[in-house]
């Protein structure tokens, strides 16, 4: 069974997914980051493939992507790194990449190589769901890969239902009108949006992302939805870290702490 599906079958709430940029802070830190995240309780890991022109990303991920590219990381190398780390690791792994690097690699070839490297799903923000369903669904199925769709506060209900109907793994709930980045707390409007989604009776699990940065926002998001994704805040923690293991442990502990205590 696909590890993403297994995760959501076994765990219904407080799922914590962590995004990081492969090849950051060092070219060869990808494996250490994944091991540290697995060891310290991340339920799911999103491996960001850096792109030169990440239009859906805010400053933090733009900079980590730039640095990873300057470090010389490539999609080929990332897949090799993942192969090294996959042994014995049961945490679901996703690749998050813009479409252009994937097309250059070859989408079919990537599906094959990603599955071989132990990847469970892909998030491709600029691949329209319609085109995926029409052209790529078959190859994803062949390799038991999930393609994750995004929802935003602007997505009309009819489209939410469409995305849910075809949803695989989980739906990535973009928390606000924003690129990725760090926020201290969610507004009433955002909370109402999470709550509304939770009452729609969707079949695909919902995981909030963009703006989850601390124990408060993590709690707020997971109160109504199945889980939450942290990205920029973790990258900031890595940026300052001298020891990836320790930084990851502290970061995840703080995130899961009770904000009221």
């Amino acid at each position, binding site marked *: 069974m696909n590890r993403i599906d297994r995760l959501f079958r076994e765990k219904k709430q407080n799922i914590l997914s962590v995004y990081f940029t492969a090849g950051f802070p060092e070219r060869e830190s990808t494996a250490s980051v994944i091991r540290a995240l697995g060891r310290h309780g991340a339920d799911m890991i999103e491996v960001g493939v850096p792109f030169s022109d990440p239009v859906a990303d805010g400053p933090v991920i733009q900079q980590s992507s730039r640095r990873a590219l300057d470090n010389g990381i490539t999609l080929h190398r990332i897949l090799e790194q993942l192969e090294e780390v996959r042994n014995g690791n049961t945490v679901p792994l996703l690749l998050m990449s*813009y479409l252009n690097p*994937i097309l*250059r690699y070859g989408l079919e070839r990537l599906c094959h190589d990603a599955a071989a490297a132990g990847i469970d799903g892909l998030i491709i923000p*600029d691949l329209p769901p319609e085109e995926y369903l029409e052209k790529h669904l078959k190859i994803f199925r062949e390799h038991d890969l999930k393609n994750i769709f995004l929802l935003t506060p*602007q997505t009309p209900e009819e489209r939410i239902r469409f995305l849910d109907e075809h949803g695989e793994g989980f739906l990535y709930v973009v928390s606000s009108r924003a690129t990725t980045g760090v926020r201290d707390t969610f507004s009433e409007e955002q909370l109402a949006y999470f709550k509304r989604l939770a009452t729609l009776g969707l079949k695909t699990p919902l995981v909030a992302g963009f703006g989850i940065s601390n124990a408060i926002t993590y709690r707020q998001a997971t109160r109504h939805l199945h889980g939450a994704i942290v990205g920029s805040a973790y990258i900031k923690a890595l940026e300052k870290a001298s020891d990836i293991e320790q930084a990851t442990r502290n970061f995840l502990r703080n995130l899961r702490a009770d904000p009221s205590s």
Partner: protein
Amino acid sequence: MKTQTSFHPDEKGFYGDFGGAYVPEMLYPNVKELQEKYLDILEDSAFREEYRRLLNDYAGRPTPLYPAARLSSHYGTHVYLKREDLTHTGAHKINNALGQILLAQRLGKRRIIAETGAGQHGVATATVCARMGMSCTVYMGALDVQRQRPNVERMKLLGATVVPVHSGNQTLKDAVNEALRDWITHPEETYYLIGSTVGPHPYPDLVARLQSVISEELLWQFPRQSGRDLPDAVLACVGGGSNASGVFYHYLDKPQVRLLAAEAGGQGVATGHTAATIALGRTGILHGCRSYVIQDDDGQITEPYSVSAGLDYPGIGPLLSHLHATGRAAFYAVTDDEALAATRLLARLEGIIPALESAHALALLEKIPFTADDHIIINLSGRGDKDMETILKHIGE
């Protein structure tokens, strides 16, 4: 606006293999709304009337088709210059900005954002925003802010906010990235007024249709000036492709008219300091559409270079990509030096200082042997005032 040529995109915005709308879900509602409404709005008679009046009374259309006698005798052929440089704000960009601001109004948007390279599209957008009393934010690469300073000052005087962009090479590509991020962050109230035939469907078609006024005028101007029905060739420079699309538009389905495009060779196609997308690009996705893109083997976009800020872009619009793939248009890389030489030549022979972008099209006269029987049109997309600092730096007085 004529609507039937064989070079229109299909329903999903594809010209052959190129085009489409590869946008993150955050932009889906905005792009979808535009896709659903743009044709109805463009074809609405009240829109057409208002647009036409603004083009004529405000922007100064029709622009002359000027038989350039001394340039013609220098090259031993017949050269006609389409004088987009004489429009209000000094480039063809105003044709598009006026059309899109009327569209934005009809969509009920209050805030306008734009990207700019040379600053001509930024100035055109700031101008139409001032004219309509709308708020205007222009993203501009920090390098371009330096090399096109007069245009930055113009935008500010017109009441626009100019935001320098420090990522990447700090040029046009990076300005588009930042404009897209702004749009993602403010999707409801904001209209993204794109300056060229790039971006997700329907922008390439929308901009091409608005710029098609250039060749619409040529359909009656050229016969009057030359006594012939059709020119032998039409020449234009290509950044994203808007002035080329506009001047080619009504000739696309007339195969006897050669369509010739000049892209920015920078220091030379082989030097790595270039923006020659057709020469070096491979199919890819940049800024929401599939087109030729200069990129490395790992799919990372290569930072482009050209002396001309308006051509300093690693992509090219889907219509132009399609014209290349089908062989309908021929593309040539023109270097900085060739463009600068053409600038000087036009200044001396005709008393016209072209924009460095337009000078790339003029430089084709050196590369392509035209005969005494040929009658060719060159789109003089803009004037060179904005480039004086750069021109003086390179060619002295």
